[in-house]
């Protein structure tokens, strides 16, 4: 768990949230719709990274299948839309219930393992979902599924238009940050954090850590599923490709780059990852090579990630 934040880093966090809050207006003023699109995508992936950080950073559960929930969330928009069901509340409820159920079943099995076995089993479950959707020809199989209209909500909170969509994403981001902030500071969160350091010790203090870890796993999956709902609406297209295990690997990278076990770190990680990807691809077609090198350097020398650099402001 991050040590108590100092005032300078808190100012940076609040400043960043303020900038994110006014970003659509700035991009509209400067006529940069592409940047708004990129930022929207970055924030959605950021929410997914925050949810992964809840189990990975705070709970020490390294899941290589977390992106499956992003895909499930997106399909909870796409499949009802295929049958002309566009009610947003139905999409959201479906995503919450489906992700919670899938996480409960797979988590109940996965959390009986530890370390590399946990990584492998989460990846196996994720691949299972990936191949299930790959075989569903009714819903586009590997061609994917086009979503012709976004989820419908009352007019004052609709998702139509890039700016409305952005504020939906920004709203969920704020809720997620607040929820995780409260959760990790609650007794529940402290048990999860303590269990990461020494699970047996936590059991010796009277906690059924399996139950706590499973609950945390389900909560994390639901948050990621909600990010998936936004992703489906944002891209208006879904395909099994977004559930590939390599995407889960990218999500882990984002969490590590940003700083595991820190509140804002995964968000920094996701934004840096996506913006770097875009910036480098403008320079050369061999950008993967530079990007890979940079990631290796960041992991080797950037101990604690971006959040750790920011916390140096407080010293």
């Amino acid at each position, binding site marked *: *768990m991050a*040590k*108590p934040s100092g005032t300078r880093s808190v100012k940076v966090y609040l400043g960043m949230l303020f900038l994110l809050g006014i970003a659509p207006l700035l991009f509209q003023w400067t006529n940069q719709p592409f940047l708004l699109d990129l930022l929207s995508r970055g924030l959605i992936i950021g929410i997914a990274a925050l949810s992964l950080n809840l189990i990975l950073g705070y709970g020490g559960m390294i899941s290589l299948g977390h992106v499956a929930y992003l895909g499930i969330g997106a399909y909870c928009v796409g499949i009802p839309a295929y049958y002309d069901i566009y009610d947003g509340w139905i999409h959201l409820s479906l995503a919450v219930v489906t992700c919670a159920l899938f996480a409960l079943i797979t988590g109940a099995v996965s959390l009986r393992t530890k370390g590399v076995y946990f990584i492998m089993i989460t990846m196996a479950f994720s691949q299972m979902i990936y191949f299930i959707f790959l075989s569903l020809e009714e819903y586009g199989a590997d061609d994917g599924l086009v979503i012709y209209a976004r989820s419908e909500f009352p007019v004052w909170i609709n998702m139509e238009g890039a700016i409305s969509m952005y504020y939906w994403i920004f709203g969920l981001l704020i809720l997620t940050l607040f929820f995780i902030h409260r959760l990790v500071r609650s*007794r529940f969160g*402290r*048990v999860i*954090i*303590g269990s*990461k*350091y*020494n699970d*047996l*010790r936590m*059991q*010796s*203090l*009277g*906690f*059924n*850590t399996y139950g706590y870890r499973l609950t945390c796993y389900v909560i994390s999956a639901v948050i990621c599923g909600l990010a998936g709902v936004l992703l489906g609406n944002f891209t208006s297209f879904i395909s099994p490709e977004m559930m590939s295990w390599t995407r889960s690997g990218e999500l882990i990278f984002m969490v590590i780059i940003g700083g595991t*076990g820190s509140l804002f770190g995964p968000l920094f990680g996701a934004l840096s990852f996506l913006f770097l990807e875009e910036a480098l691809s403008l320079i050369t077609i061999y950008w993967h090579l530079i990007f890979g090198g940079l990631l290796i350097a960041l992991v080797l020398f950037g101990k604690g990630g971006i959040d750790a650099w920011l916390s140096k402001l407080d010293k």
Partner: protein
Amino acid sequence: MGLECKEGKLTTLLGRNGMGKTTTVKSIIGKVSVTHGEISFRGESIIGMPTYDIIRKGIGLVPEGRHIFPNLSVKENLVATANKNSGLATEWTVDQVVEFFPALGDRLNHMGDQLSGGEQQMLAIGRALMLNPQMLILDEATEGLAPLVRQEIWNRLVEIKQLGITILLIDKNIDEFIDISDFHYIIEKGRQVWAGPSRELVDDSGLKARYLGI
């Protein structure tokens, strides 16, 4: 081996290194599976129960090596482990633990790995007290601590005993705690070789030399 901890008394489990003291503790709290024999707490068999259930029945463990959570602050270490459903009339609070160990008062917001050995030990005992135990097990609680800090721990154990909490103590500094303890068991290679009150142990110097190497 037979081991009985009488209610409200301080019982010790003595023996040289590797004789099975910590294994006995692990058996009590369900960390080591017991193939035969019986272990009961307040008249109820606890064999085969998961560790967390045994602890919830009212046993607080201060483990060898302390095992403070370094990624939690002192206050979080105490709050996270508190048992608010002990059913006891008066339950331990963070304030009471701080009153009990004033040294922790100024360190509440420090992380677990920023404490001295003595402070960590006080926190480990405080954390066990927050479980509102009816029995406290201390496994090598004063290992590596300075004599003054050890004395502080013994003083606190006397107060804990006065509160009616049963104590099982495993420690090497027998001369320091013999006056505050009531009954002793000596084990060798997993077997009980002697049991008796403090006076008998004091009087028999050969006993200590033979089994404890003192």
